C-alpha cells in the first residue's frame, strides 16, 4: 500500500495533469521564444547588418545578455552550495529553486557567444582541439578561458542539480504506473534509499559544494577578464573580477527571490516557502546591495582620481552625458531603493523583497550594458568614437531569453518537484524526532545493545 503524507501530496500536486491556465502560460511563452528564434534565424540569414553593431561598438545587446545571464546563474549553485556547507536548516525549500536557475541561466547565457558568432554552425572553432594545420586555439585568450570556465560550471551545476533529484525521482517512480513509471524509474537509477546510498549521496553533495564554490567565483571572474584584459578605458581594472562576482551574486539572489515568489503564488507553496526565507534572502540581498555600492564607488573613484583623459571621457558619458539617465537609474534601483526597502524590517516582506529584486534585475542588466557600450564608444582617440542603439532583432532576442527562462522554469516545475521532498523530510526528522534519552526504550538507544 502506497501512502502519501501531506508534504508529499502538496509537493507532488504540481506534477498532476496540467490545467488550461498552465497550457496558456506555456503557449504564450513558447510563442515569444519562437519569435526570438525567428529573429535569430533572420539575423543569420541577412547578416549582422541587421543589428545596431557598428564600428567601433561591436559588442552590444548580445554580449550584455551573455554577461547578465551568466551573472543570474550565480544565484543557484553558489548559494545552494554555501548553504549546504554551513548546514543552514532554512535552505531546504530554497536550494532546488536556486539550482534550477543556475542550470537554465547558464544554458541561455552560454548561447550568446554562439549567437554573437553570427555563424553558429562554426561553434566548434571555440572548442580547444587542433585544426587541420595542427594549430591549437590560443590558450592565452580570455575567450578560450570562457569555454573552459562555462563548460565546467555548466557540467558541475547540472550534476549538482541532478544528484539530489534522484531520491525524488524514486519517490515518483514508486507512486506512478505505465510510461511515467518507466521514465522516472530510469531517472532514479535504481535508487532504494539504503543507508549506504544516503551516505554516498550526501558526501558527494558536500564534495561538489566544496568544488563548485571556487568554480562559480572563477566563472564570473573569467567573464570579467573578457573586459579587463583589454586596454580599453574603464575596463582595464584589477577590481573587475570581484566587482563582477559581487554583481553576479547580487543579481542572482534577486532572480531567485522573484522565482520563489512566483512559485509560492502559482503552485500554492505558501506552507514551505515561508516569509522567513524571503526575510533571510532579503538580508543577503541588502548585504550584496551595499557591497555593489562599495565596488561601484571604488571603481568610479579610481577612474575619476586618475583623471586620465580617455577614462574621463567614458566617465563623463555615463555620469553626465548621454548615458547618464541609464547610469542614475542603475544607481537608484541597485542601491538606493534596495537599501531603503531592505534595511527597514517592516518593508522586508515578500512584496518588499520582490519589488527590490525586480529593480535589481533591471539595474544589473543596465550595469552590464553600461560597462560594455560607453567604453567601446569612447576609446583613446576621438576618431574611434561612436554610438550604439539596438535594433529590433536584438531586442526580440533579448525579450525571448527572459521568456525562455520562464518557459524552462515552468516546464521543469511541471515534471519535477521544485522543492526537494527528501530534504524537507530530513529536516522534519531532525526537528521532530531528536529523541531524548528517557523517551527511547533502553534497547532502542543508539546501538547500545550492539556495543
Amino acid at each position: 500500500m502506497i501512502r502519501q503524507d501531506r508534504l508529499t501530496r502538496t509537493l507532488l500536486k504540481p506534477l498532476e495533469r496540467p490545467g488550461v491556465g498552465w497550457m496558456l502560460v506555456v503557449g504564450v511563452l513558447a510563442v515569444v521564444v519562437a519569435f526570438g528564434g525567428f529573429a535569430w534565424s533572420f539575423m543569420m540569414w541577412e547578416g549582422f547588418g541587421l543589428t545596431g553593431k557598428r564600428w567601433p561598438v561591436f559588442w552590444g545587446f548580445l554580449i550584455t545578455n551573455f554577461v547578465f545571464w551568466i551573472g543570474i546563474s550565480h544565484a543557484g549553485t553558489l548559494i545552494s552550495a554555501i548553504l549546504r556547507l554551513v548546514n543552514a536548516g532554512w535552505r531546504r525549500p530554497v536550494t532546488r529553486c536556486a539550482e534550477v536557475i543556475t542550470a537554465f541561466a547558464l544554458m541561455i547565457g552560454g548561447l550568446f557567444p554562439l549567437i554573437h558568432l553570427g555563424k553558429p554552425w562554426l561553434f566548434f572553432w571555440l572548442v580547444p582541439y587542433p585544426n587541420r594545420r595542427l594549430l591549437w586555439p590560443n590558450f592565452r585568450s580570455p575567450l578560450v578561458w570562457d569555454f573552459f570556465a562555462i563548460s565546467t560550471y555548466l557540467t558541475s551545476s547540472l550534476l549538482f542539480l541532478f544528484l539530489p533529484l534522484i531520491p525524488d525521482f524514486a519517490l515518483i517512480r514508486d507512486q506512478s504506473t505505465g510510461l511515467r513509471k518507466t521514465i522516472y524509474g530510469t531517472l532514479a537509477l535504481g535508487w532504494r534509499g539504503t543507508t549506504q546510498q544516503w551516505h554516498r549521496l550526501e558526501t558527494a553533495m558536500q564534495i561538489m559544494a566544496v568544488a563548485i564554490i571556487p568554480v562559480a567565483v572563477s566563472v564570473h571572474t573569467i567573464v570579467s577578464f573578457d573586459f579587463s584584459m583589454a586596454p580599453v578605458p574603464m575596463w582595464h581594472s584589477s577590481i573587475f573580477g570581484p566587482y563582477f562576482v559581487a554583481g553576479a551574486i547580487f543579481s542572482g539572489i534577486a532572480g531567485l527571490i522573484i522565482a520563489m515568489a512566483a512559485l509560492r503564488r502559482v503552485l500554492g507553496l505558501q506552507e514551505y516557502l515561508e516569509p522567513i526565507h524571503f526575510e533571510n534572502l532579503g538580508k543577503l540581498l541588502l548585504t550584496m546591495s551595499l557591497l555593489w555600492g562599495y565596488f561601484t564607488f571604488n571603481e568610479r573613484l579610481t577612474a575619476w582620481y586618475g583623471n586620465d583623459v580617455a577614462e574621463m571621457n567614458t566617465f563623463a558619458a555615463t555620469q553626465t552625458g548621454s548615458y547618464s539617465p541609464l547610469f542614475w537609474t542603475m544607481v537608484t534601483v541597485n542601491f538606493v531603493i534596495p537599501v531603503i526597502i531592505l534595511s527597514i524590517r517592516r518593508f522586508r516582506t515578500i512584496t518588499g523583497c520582490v519589488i527590490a529584486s525586480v529593480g535589481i534585475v533591471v539595474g544589473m542588466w543596465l550595469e552590464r550594458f553600461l560597462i560594455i557600450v560607453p567604453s567601446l564608444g569612447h576609446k583613446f582617440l576621438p576618431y574611434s568614437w561612436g554610438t550604439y542603439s539596438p535594433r529590433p532583432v536584438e531586442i526580440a532576442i533579448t525579450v525571448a531569453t527572459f521568456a525562455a527562462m520562464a518557459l524552462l522554469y515552468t516546464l521543469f516545475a511541471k515534471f519535477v518537484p521544485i522543492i526537494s521532498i527528501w530534504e524537507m523530510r530530513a529536516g522534519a526528522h531532525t526537528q521532530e524526532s531528536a529523541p531524548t534519552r528517557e523517551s527511547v526504550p533502553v534497547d532502542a538507544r543508539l546501538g547500545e545493545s550492539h556495543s
Partner: protein
Amino acid sequence: MKSVYALFDTGEAAQRAVNSLRSAGYGERDITVMTAAPMEEFEFSHIGRHSYQWYIACGGGLLGLVLGTWLTTYAETSWPIVVGNMPIVPWYPNIIVIFELTMLGAVLSTVATLIVTAGLGRRTPALYDPEVTSGAILVGIGTPRADGDVEQILGAVPGARVKTV
C-alpha cells in the same frame, strides 16, 4: 534462500530491529536498512558510512590538474607562437585552464564514485519495497542463515510488517 524484511513506521522500532538482528549475530554487511530520507539521529543510519569518496575526488582533481598542464603546455609548444610578448608557455593564463580542469576532474570523479559505490544504475534489486519512499523504514536481511530465523526476530518488534521476497 528468500530475502526477509520488515517495514516499520518509526525510527525507534527500526533501531530496535537492527539491534535485535545484531544480537542474533548478523553483521553490518548482512543488514539492509532503507529510509525515505537520511535519519542521522538513529544509529542504524551509520551503517555503510565509511567511504573513500574524498580521496577519490582529490585523485580526480589531481588527474585534471595533470591533464590541464599537459594540454596547455603541449598545445603551446606544438606550434610555438609569441602572443602579446608573453612566453611560449605563459603560466598565468595557463593556470586558469588548469584550475578549471582540476575542478572538473574532482567533480566528475565524485559522480563516478557515487554511481559505483552506491550501486546506482543496476537492475532491479532483490530487496526493496515501494513503501520505503512513502516513509516506511525497511530493515531486512538479503540472505538469512536459516528459514524462519529472521522472520522471528523482526516479527518480535512491535509494529513490524514482516515480508519475504
